[in-house]
């Protein structure tokens, strides 16, 4: 799959390798689900599912332990999976912008909820394509038991196995892991080009602890927009939020004040108003005091009394 096809700067994007027309799709199939790019402060997060006949034995394919594989080896295995008539996949790319927007929205959608919804979406997509799904294997962080219960509720016809390190245990999950990682890397590369970051510039892995990433973030600070390539950055991450708060001009969103929380969700009360220190810098609405409620509601001030 070409790099450009993986680009996702805005919203989300579903990519598939559809093998549902193959004869095995009507026979019992198994699904493996894994993610990539959950932790980084840069770029997209990807949820991927790999589907294969229940009868197939993928254990000899060396998909296992994708974290130990080199990028080149992963790329090559990804091509193998794409070309293999006996393996299909479905993946959703969630852009950094989408992640930020959801987590910073008035609803304060958590990353876990985004993960869950993405998982549901790809399972549903696989089922809608006509694969005869029986069993699903998922790698998880956090409470495996509870997650399995929720999944079983959503998809009563499927049998779920949820456990940590599933990508090492079940080859179909390893395959999903490879798809997720490769798409994540390609999406980031593609985004890098789209926003005009030169090829030689190192973003690092995108993890907040990575020194390359930290250095890049600091070097691309922007006074107004936070970062000079804002579409690459997850503003909801503490790392990004802190840098912006420390260096960029102070901007307060009315929506945050309504919540009573700051962007990082620490729950501290945030006062929105700016003290009108001087006549010059006075905020317009104070000038509307004494006027009819109609004008005050619209923050309309008499022109001669302003500034």
């Amino acid at each position: 799959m070409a790099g450009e096809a993986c680009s996702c700067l805005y919203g989300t994007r579903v990519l598939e390798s559809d093998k549902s027309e193959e004869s095995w799709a009507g026979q019992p199939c198994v699904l493996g689900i894994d993610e990539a790019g959950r932790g980084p402060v840069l770029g997209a997060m990807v949820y991927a599912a790999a589907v294969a006949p229940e009868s197939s034995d993928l254990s000899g394919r060396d998909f296992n332990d994708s974290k130990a594989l080199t990028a080149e080896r992963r790329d090559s295995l990804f091509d193998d999976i794409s070309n293999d008539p006996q393996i299909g996949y479905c993946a959703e790319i969630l852009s950094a912008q989408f992640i930020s927007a959801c987590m910073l929205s008035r609803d304060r959608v958590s990353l876990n909820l985004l993960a869950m919804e993405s998982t549901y979406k790809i399972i549903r997509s696989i089922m809608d394509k006509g694969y005869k799904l029986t069993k699903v294997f998922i790698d998880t962080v956090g409470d495996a038991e509870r997650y399995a219960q929720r999944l079983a509720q959503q998809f009563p016809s499927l049998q779920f196995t949820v456990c940590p390190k599933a990508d090492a245990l079940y080859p179909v999950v390893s395959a999903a892991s490879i798809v997720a990682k490769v798409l994540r890397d390609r999406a980031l590369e593609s985004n890098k080009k789209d926003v005009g970051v030169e090829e030689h510039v190192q973003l690092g892995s995108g993890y907040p602890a990575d020194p390359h990433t930290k250095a890049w973030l600091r070097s691309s600070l922007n006074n107004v927009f936070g970062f000079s390539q804002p579409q690459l950055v997850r503003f909801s991450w503490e790392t990004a939020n802190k840098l912006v708060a420390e260096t960029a001009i102070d901007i307060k969103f009315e929506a945050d004040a309504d919540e009573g929380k700051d962007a990082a969700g620490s729950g501290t009360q945030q006062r929105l108003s700016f003290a009108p220190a001087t006549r010059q810098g006075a905020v317009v609405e104070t000038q509307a005091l004494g006027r009819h409620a109609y004008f005050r509601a619209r923050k309309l001030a008499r022109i001669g009394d302003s500034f």
Partner: protein
Amino acid sequence: MSHSKVHLSIHSARQQQPPAEATLHWLPCKTGQSCDADVAKLFNPTIQVLKPSGDLQGEASSSTQPLLEASFRGRQLRGQRLVLPPGYKGFVTTAGAPSSSVQGCTGGEESQEDEDEDLGEVEGSAQGQRRRPCKHWIVRHTFDSVTYWNHDTPPGRSDLPRRVFDWMAVAKQVHQPVSREQVEEQMRTMQL
């Protein structure tokens, strides 16, 4: 309540050219600071069209402005362009020095002349109000429309910027003098 005059310089001796048209974005946030921003590079590319025509439910005049989405500091913005009604013009101004050399300004001293007749319609002005020196604003840019943005929520009728524009559209009618005959006619129809 006192009233004051504002002198608006559209062409001042110091400016080289007439003021340029500006594109304005009204964001759902506040800042105490003012500075340059690379809007073309860092904001405009994030703008997406959500819906080509922004007809809001129940609006008398259908808005043909598209519903838009954008991103600012990671926030999801949803907005729409509002066009100034006929007879209105937008100015982006900076304060100039109030001086007596500017035509029509008192330059800080009270003047016995020049009753503010044109400001009278809103005030019901009374005599003997303390007069302020005339303010001087210099026009930097002009505009005929503003794109306003909500945090997450799609543009709606009760949004503040929209209500401001609603006022502009009816302000003239509200201030229009009404004849005795018109009042009597209205009362007749109400009684029916």
